């Protein structure tokens, strides 16, 4: 009898702990998460100018910086983050696994590049089996772009999968500059710009070459739950995002000044980077189809259910 009681007790405690999480309720705090890099500049502008705070009375806005997409995805699943920014492939992987979320808007298009210091590597074909390629993680946009290029050139999307090293962008840049652990680094601004300024480091492959066209690098995403329970905040957020994007495009000098507070770079440098050819801030979403078709073909996603209406809250933001 005593045994039975202690057993029941254990079960109650166990299920009590578990039931603590995951309730669907109206919140007073909205959490927005992004990552490191100049592609997220409009978010930093929005935060700095308090655009969102000014239009949402009584709602606290919390800004989080997470180290990688997987962390953002997990935080959104746990209900810790309401709006997250990420690249299209990790969004699609989540969608494919049943994550109830859709794209709010595009944020930026950006030059991405596979960089190397080795003179004798000019194309992908020159990369030998011993060379190591650093990128943020498998399933990241950098990985998917590399797989796209590998499929086009060698008919094998997984050709480089055995030589990947996962490194956050800053670590990858340091590793490439010291020319020791890795041969090549697939990265984004400002790292790709910094690396290209180093004597002897050159680009093997650009993001556009890999995909065969233009694509949105970063998009904003929110869960169904947030979209339905906070329609007013949603529309205020979309407006604020629009204003920030417009601000960067119209006043790059001022924007660069604000951004010096967020990056360890001078104002001129930031201005040069945010107006770099190919660095475009826009709410349009591009490249979705190309990613979906490739990722289905290469078995990164299984689901056939990838209609535009399933992927975007506002379908007319999609531009082919």
């Amino acid at each position, binding site marked *: 009898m005593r045994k039975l009681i202690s057993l029941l007790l254990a079960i109650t405690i166990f*299920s009590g702990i578990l039931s603590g999480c*995951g309730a669907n309720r109206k919140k007073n705090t909205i959490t927005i998460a992004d990552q490191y890099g100049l592609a997220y500049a409009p978010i930093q502008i929005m935060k700095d100018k308090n655009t969102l705070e000014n239009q949402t009375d009584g709602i606290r806005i919390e800004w989080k910086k997470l180290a990688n997409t*997987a962390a953002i995805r997990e935080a959104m699943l746990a209900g810790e983050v309401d709006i997250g920014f990420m690249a299209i492939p990790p969004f699609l992987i989540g969608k494919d696994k049943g994550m109830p979320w859709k794209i709010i808007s595009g944020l930026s298009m950006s030059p991405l590049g596979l960089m190397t210091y080795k003179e004798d590597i000019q194309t992908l074909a020159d990369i030998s089996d011993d060379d*190591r390629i650093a990128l943020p993680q498998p*399933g990241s946009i950098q990985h998917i772009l590399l797989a796209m290029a590998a499929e086009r050139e060698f008919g094998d999307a997984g050709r480089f999968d*055995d030589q*990947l*090293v996962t490194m956050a962008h800053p670590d990858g840049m340091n590793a490439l500059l010291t020319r020791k*652990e890795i041969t090549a680094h697939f990265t984004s601004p400002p790292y790709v710009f910094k690396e290209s300024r180093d004597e002897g480091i050159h680009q093997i492959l650009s993001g556009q070459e890999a995909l065969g066209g233009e694509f949105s690098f970063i998009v904003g995403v929110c869960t169904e739950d947030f979209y339905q329970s906070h329609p007013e905040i949603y529309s205020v957020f979309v407006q604020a995002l629009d204003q920030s994007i417009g601000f960067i495009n119209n006043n790059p000098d001022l924007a660069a000044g604000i951004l010096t507070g967020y990056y360890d770079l001078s104002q001129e440098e930031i201005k040069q980077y945010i107006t770099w050819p190919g660095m475009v801030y826009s709410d349009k979403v591009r490249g979705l189809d190309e990613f979906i078709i490739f990722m289905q073909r290469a078995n990164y996603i299984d689901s056939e259910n990838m209609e535009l209406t399933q992927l975007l809250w506002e379908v007319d933001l999609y531009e082919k």
Partner: protein
Amino acid sequence: MRNNKLIHRVFWIILLALIWQIIFWSGRFSPLVFPSLLDIGGTLIDSLLNGELTQQLLFSLSIIFQGLVISLVLAVFLSLAAHFSEIAASLADTLVAIAHPLPGIALMPLVLIWFGVGRQAIIFIIIHSVLWPLVLNLRTGFSSIPEIYNLVGKNYALSRMQRMIQIMAPASLPYLLVGLKIGWARAWRALISAEMLFGAVSSSGGLGWYIFQKRVFFDLPGVFSGIIVIVIIGILVEDFIFDKIEERTIKKWGMKS
């Protein structure tokens, strides 16, 4: 007694699994957060059969085995030297005092610079995790051998080498086994953490990498199947390998009941 222990283990595991599945069936949580045991089992069997998990498991086991063997050899040499020489003893003490409290993961940035990303780096971390507890235990073991054993050996005119092999080794075996157990547990943890930090090295990244990969592709049943394999290996090594060795040696010799 043994069978009883096994039955208890199985009983609790089945009960926990049942609770898990009931919580899943209750539908309180999205399967993205709390996957069904059936999904987890399915993924586990799939990735064992298609070789994905098996290959990573073998990689992890081979690397930990290498690390253990190297550490064992180093530890025996260091402890024997310390037993017979005062200078070596003070060196060993200092080394242990410096290195023993250092978690292997804290050394990771240095190890990356010294060895780069790869096998050597992980082996280094494993040796670091195993060597110091082993040295500590072996030293205690040697010094707790009753002097009379040695005297008996000398009486039989055994050489120093013979005394080491025939008297010191078996007499200190209980301590060696304890050291190995601690070392194994620490190495196993260090290995998984190190693998999760590193990328795949020539297609094999080990169990830690397998879990990391499942995580980035948002495959929770996959993450769980990796964790289950880690648990199973842990139990197998503890309950079977170490217990069997103890039964055949120190228990048989009456050194441990």
